[in-house]
């Protein structure tokens, strides 16, 4: 494991996550799992999150431990090699782990998304090879959908896989790929005909596969993001996941779960921001009193708290609809994603303001949460697209 030098010790909230940890909708098993995840997050992630961010370090050892605890294949059925829990459990887990570090939890969420696709759509061979490797963190998997010319308009993709004998030859460029250049497996979503979108596996070191530079981002520093370039990449047709033309349906079904996960990551980050703000308001004195005595700040804090609780409720409700496969699940997932990611970013941003000048310093961690949460409004479907989905469902 790479040793991080120059570790400054960062403030860890005194009574973190306990006050607003409502247990609505959670049964005993959820609570047990939440405890394990939160204990792990506070002990093994929170003290190091700022270092990982500062050094652009993907913490493989921690991800390995998390995977071995069963957090990499949360909603993959047991008979397919996963842990066999539900999306509500996943939401609880990601919320707890994000309290420790948002970016690393997001990396784990991608593992879950890819494992879900491989388990539910892959061949038995693909499942038997990759699910155990994901469970032991022997393989980091990247999901490649977005291209320079197709983001929200993802049907407009140009990456093309042409049949050649028993192989596919794939050409194209994918961008904004989390885990690019360091992953072992790339799940490429590409066109296999004029109309058909398919998902094809490309392993690292396949000739023709190369990567752009690691993007210099505002946040999510503990996860490298690069372009993935495919130049005449040749893979056997047995690398197809699911059927030709199914790629789109697969993506949409995976994204519903992915959206719950990213919203849950926002919840965890906002929880930490709220706890840090609480400690600051009670410690800092100006004009002869604690900041927590000033009504303006009390009102701001109250709004932040209510916002967090509401976000948590809508995310958990959407997760339950997804678990029960209800007909309006995508509507609720979209509402949850846009509401929670927007609200939680505002909670973190407000927490930064409450910290005054200290909020602007890296040492106080708040600015890292703001930077990390900012992208949640954009990826896994921009919040604008979420609004399109909601309106379409309700107004058509």
């Amino acid at each position, binding site marked *: 494991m790479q040793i991080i030098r120059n570790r400054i010790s960062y403030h860890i909230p005194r009574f973190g996550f306990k006050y607003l940890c409502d247990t609505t909708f959670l049964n*005993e098993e959820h609570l047990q*799992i939440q*405890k*394990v995840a939160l*204990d792990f997050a506070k002990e093994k992630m929170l003290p190091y999150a700022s270092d990982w961010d500062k050094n652009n370090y993907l913490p493989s050892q921690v991800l390995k431990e998390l995977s071995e*605890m069963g957090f990499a294949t949360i909603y993959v059925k047991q008979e397919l090699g996963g842990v066999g829990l539900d999306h509500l459990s996943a939401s609880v887990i990601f919320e707890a782990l994000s309290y420790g570090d948002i970016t690393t939890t997001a990396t784990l969420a991608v593992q879950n998304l890819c494992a879900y696709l491989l388990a539910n759509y892959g061949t038995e061979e693909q499942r038997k090879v990759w699910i155990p490797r994901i469970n032991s963190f022997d393989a980091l998997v990247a999901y490649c959908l977005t291209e320079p010319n197709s983001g929200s308009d993802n049907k407009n993709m140009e990456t093309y896989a042409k049949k050649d004998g028993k192989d596919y030859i794939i050409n194209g460029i994918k961008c904004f790929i989390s885990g690019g250049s360091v992953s072992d497996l790339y799940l490429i979503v590409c066109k296999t005909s004029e109309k058909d979108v398919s998902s094809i596996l490309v392993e690292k070191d396949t000739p023709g596969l190369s990567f752009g530079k690691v993007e210099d981002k505002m946040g999510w520093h503990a996860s490298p993001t690069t372009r993935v370039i495919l130049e005449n990449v040749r893979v056997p047709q047995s690398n197809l996941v699911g059927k030709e033309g199914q790629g789109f349906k697969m993506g949409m079904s995976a994204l519903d779960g992915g959206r719950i996960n990213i919203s849950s990551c926002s919840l965890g980050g906002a929880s930490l921001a709220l706890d840090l703000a609480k400690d600051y308001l009670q410690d800092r004195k100006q004009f002869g009193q604690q900041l927590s005595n000033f009504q303006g700040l009390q009102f701001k804090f109250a709004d932040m708290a209510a916002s967090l609780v509401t976000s948590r409720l809508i995310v958990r409700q959407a997760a339950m609809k997804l678990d029960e496969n209800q007909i309006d699940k995508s509507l609720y997932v979209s509402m949850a994603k846009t509401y929670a990611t927007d609200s939680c970013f505002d909670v973190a941003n407000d927490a930064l303001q409450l910290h005054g000048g200290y909020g602007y310093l890296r040492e106080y961690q708040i600015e890292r949460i703001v930077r990390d949460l900012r992208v949640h409004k954009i990826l896994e479907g921009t919040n604008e697209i979420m609004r399109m989905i909601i309106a379409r469902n309700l107004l058509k």
Partner: protein
Amino acid sequence: MKVLVAVKRVVDSGIKVRVKPDGIDLQGVKMTINPFCEIAVEEAVRLKEKKLIAEIVAVTIGPKQGAESLRHALALGADKAIHVTTEARIDQAVQPLDVANILAKLVERDNYNLVLMGKQSIDDDFNQTGQMLAGLLDWPQATFASNIQITDGIAQVIREIDGGLQTVKFKLPGVITCDLRLNQPRFASVPNIMKAKSKPLETIPLDKLGKLHNSIQITKTEAPAIRKGGAIVENVDVLIQKLRNEAKLF
């Protein structure tokens, strides 16, 4: 070899307790497994992984929520659990001698070779139950264990005592109570949490095994005095006068 591990469900060490006239306010308060009991479970699991013991049975005494601590023990690696049920307040009415008597009954019923417990519970801090149990069973005991080795039915335990470290050796069966530095409990994995659901959990009403005598009565519960400011003294005489008359040290 069979091991009995006794676990207690206590108020979580991180929260701020509220004191009411009749004791600590337990309403809605976060409870968790006693940290020293968790260390005892972890030690039992490690001994089983070293193939020194074959079966771990966790036991708790308390109301139905007490089963949480049992499920935690099962998720860490215990094989079976026993829940001795009672509605009495575990932080007040369930007292060391009564607990020791109940555990002694279970030991006689199931023939354990070793009992592992936490050295004390963080709510009442009695530090008596393990010692009393050994006395009732007429078994050797080693308390405040910071290291346990078992070879051929002989236990060698390093104890943390005020004077330093003491090593004792005895032939099993015996009672060992566990201290902080014995081990660092593992995180339960999700598959183990789920497997724990199907491990056997036996429920026994307390009056089938013993009785709560309430021989110790709690007369008062109060919060510690709020810390007042200190003072700088000019010389040793004033210091001694303050220690005698204000702090009432001697």
